[in-house]
């Protein structure tokens, strides 16, 4: 690091950390240091080795070579408990919370030696007030928003008085306002001397928050910088190692109405689901509609209502003027309405089935892969190979199980499967979630190309940058209600935040 500041003793030092898995070197000779009170970004594409690295720090994985030091002393945690004992805490990207238990019970479950319930509740209140993270210990986690759930995880870490807090993609589920609150909390923590290792691929956030960045590519440290001095584009290019391909399209003039929702209301499918409330919407051919919103506000339910997994009341969904509310998924596919759900493994694809079989999963009708009920496996394999080729899915071949693909590659396959079927209307939920930058750009370009060919595209996403980049109009889901769609160009962050509406108890008690 090219710092000229007086050499403050590092809190955590990494020297030559190397970890190899069969067939892939996840981390290769990684070295850097984090000082107390520093917010340090770890930046890299998916598969760059960020997760492996933090797992080594958190005691989940043992390095093959290299050493770590904590305050100058050797640090080799054999387990997360050992890492916690040394003052390392981690907030994971996917929450490990039980929906049926309340906040205090969830926090107690994650602690090594939880105090008595009454004492714990008062400590939770104290910590959450001190750091501006309003949280009621008695509320059931199933009733909390994603942002509030994250607070549960953060408070759980803070109760252990950490010296180093690791945050893995913390803002992927937050509204802009919630992000702002999180950042204030993190800055306050850093001001008190806690070091923060912040993992993200959201460049604007890193520029706003972090003072150091270590950039990983293919397991190696390729660069370090002060992200405040760099543009987002420069950071992205360091991360990807090539010139970024920004999706391009000619702004479309929407054609005839392709998809129409009239007063769609539906009860939730499960106890923890969200009801859809009076959703009305009209979408023209060639148009891309972006639907933002914090997770759990009806995104899954809207997708299920459109895909036909749950049947809507008659007359509420029209495809090119025809009422399709009561049609089954395959009837809708035959008419040209295709969908790609968020959850790749288990919903969009069957994990243990081959890519060929997964191609059949939605392609049977439109690609005519069956004859009188009998499957034409040669045709199906051919369809799967076409997806693999057209969408650059990295796999040895279509006979491999979906589970064996990386998240990004499987996502390309899932989106490609629908796009290649030439839909009239395509609905996608979180098309680039957990996908690296170049794959995400390829997916967005494919969606734009599809719209360019006259299809209507609905993109449900929590990535606002993505929605702003590709949408013609923008709207947001909030507690099952859809805001009035507005042209995406020229919307301010404040306006977007208001549409997402997650303004409940968000004000920082400063």
């Amino acid at each position, binding site marked *: 690091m090219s710092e000229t500041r007086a050499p403050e003793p590092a809190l955590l030092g990494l020297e030559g950390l190397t970890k190899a898995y069969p067939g892939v070197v996840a981390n290769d000779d990684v070295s850097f240091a984090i000082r107390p009170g520093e917010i340090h970004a770890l930046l890299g594409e998916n598969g760059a080795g960020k997760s492996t690295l933090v797992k080594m720090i958190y005691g989940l994985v*043992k390095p093959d070579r290299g050493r770590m030091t904590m305050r100058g002393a050797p640090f080799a945690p*054999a387990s997360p408990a050992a890492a916690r004992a040394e003052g390392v805490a981690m907030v994971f990207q996917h929450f490990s919370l039980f929906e049926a238990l309340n906040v205090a019970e969830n926090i107690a479950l994650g602690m090594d030696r939880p105090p008595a319930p009454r004492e714990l509740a008062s400590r939770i209140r104290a910590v959450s007030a001190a750091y501006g993270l309003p949280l009621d210990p008695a509320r059931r986690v199933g009733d909390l928003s994603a942002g509030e759930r994250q607070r549960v995880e953060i408070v759980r870490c803070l109760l252990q008085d950490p010296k180093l807090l690791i945050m893995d993609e913390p803002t992927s589920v937050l509204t802009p306002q919630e992000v702002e609150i999180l950042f204030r909390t993190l800055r306050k923590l850093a001001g008190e001397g806690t070091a923060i290792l912040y993992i993200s691929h959201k460049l604007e956030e890193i520029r706003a928050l972090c003072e150091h960045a270590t950039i990983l590519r293919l397991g190696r440290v390729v660069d370090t910088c002060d992200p405040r001095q760099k543009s987002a584009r420069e950071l992205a290019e360091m991360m990807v190692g090539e010139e970024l391909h920004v999706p391009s399209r000619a702004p479309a003039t929407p054609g005839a109405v392709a998809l129409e929702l009239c007063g769609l209301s539906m009860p939730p499918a499960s106890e923890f689901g969200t009801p859809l409330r009076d959703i009305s919407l009209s979408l023209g051919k060639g148009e891309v509609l972006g639907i933002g919103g914090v997770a759990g506000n009806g995104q899954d339910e809207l997708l299920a209502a459109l*895909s*036909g*997994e749950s049947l809507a009341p008659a007359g509420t969904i029209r495809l090119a003027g025809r009422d399709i509310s009561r049609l*089954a*998924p*395959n009837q809708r*596919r035959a008419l040209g309405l295709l*969908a790609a*759900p968020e*959850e790749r493994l*288990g*919903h*969009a*694809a*069957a*994990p*243990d*089935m081959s890519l060929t*079989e997964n191609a*059949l*999963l*939605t392609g*049977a009708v439109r690609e005519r892969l*069956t004859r009188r*009920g*009998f*499957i034409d*496996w040669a045709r199906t394999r051919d369809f799967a190979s076409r997806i693999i080729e057209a969408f650059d899915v990295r796999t040895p071949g279509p006979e*491999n*199980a979906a*589970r*064996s693909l990386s998240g990004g590659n499987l996502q390309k396959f899932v989106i490609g499967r629908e796009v290649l079927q030439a839909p009239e209307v395509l609905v996608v939920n979180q098309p680039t979630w957990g996908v690296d930058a170049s794959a995400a750009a390829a997916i967005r370009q494919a969606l734009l190309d599809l719209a360019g060919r006259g299809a209507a595209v609905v993109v449900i996403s929590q990535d606002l940058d993505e929605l702003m980049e590709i949408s013609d109009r923008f709207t947001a889901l909030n507690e099952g209600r859809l805001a009035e769609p507005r042209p995406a160009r020229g919307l301010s962050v404040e306006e977007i935040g208001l549409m997402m509406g997650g303004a409940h108890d968000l004000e920082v008690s400063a």
Partner: protein
Amino acid sequence: MIVFEKRPSPSRFWAAVTPVLAVLATMIAGGVMFWLLGKDPLVAIRTIFWDPLFDPTFGAYSRPQLLVKAGPLILIAIGLSIGFRAGIWNIGAEGQYIIGAIVGAGVGLAFYPTESRLIFPLMVLAGAFGGWLWAMIPAFLRVRFGTNEILVSLMLVYVAEAMLASVSQGLLRNPDGMGFPGSRNFKEYPAAHNGEIIAGTGMHWGVVMALIAVIFAYLLLSRHMLGFQVRLSGEAPRAARFSGVKPARLVLFCLGLSGALAGMAGLFEVTGPAGQVSIDFGSGYGFTAIIVAFLGRLNPLGILLAGLLMALTYIGGDLASLMLGIPAAAIQLFQGMLLFFLLAMDIFTNFRIRLKKPEAA
């Protein structure tokens, strides 16, 4: 230290080799058990696996028994395996087997003593219908009220057994049987008799049907969209709904098919090897078929082999307890070991095992 690493996809090699290893492990562990019981393990193993087929004295009697016992096991297990593949658990095949036998036999006996070539096929259809109807009870209750098909189908076994006792003493009792419980013997009613097709082989129409079912199930699962939907529903229920599978229809299909096949097996048994409807007609085939289905990895060809193997251990077990005085419980333990080792060896299919030097902390 031994470390298990999950394989990216299950190993085909190990899936094929583990059944053989499991049989070998059963022989070893079973041999130890027989030795502890004071029997010569080699003789015991030979009596179970070799003598039923090749012994000059008993071979002629026990060889046909192999098909007689394997036929119903395979026929029922095929039907069950398709439901199991879809995550639909019909545990009550024994009840469907009994009701199929009662309904089919009842239809046949209603025509007594008419002689027609149509009677036996009609009885087969009636047997299938009876089993189907009995399986439709848990199917309907699950689809309509969300009940658990495992419990309902299992409990209906006991209802079926009570009905069997009732009809063999009442409705279907042989009028010329001097008041003894049990129906007329089908061996004395040629139009309704399911005799050996080739003398001395044990091959009857039920065995033929079992082979047809194996081929049918193979084609269904590997070539047909419905079979694909069955597999998809078992592996990823959400993906199946997304793909367009209607779960309720699949429940009706899977329970209906397994019920019909079990009912048919009952009919073939009652008109052939058993000969008559009697109180002790229920022989446990419906339960053993569950083991056969899993032993055959829910794969039609595997079930064919597993059915034959299971039949062999039954015949061999009987022979061993007769010839060597091995207690029946030890034989059952031996059969249980087979299932245990087979399921335990699954770990080689899904995991790679590595030896790792213990690390210095």
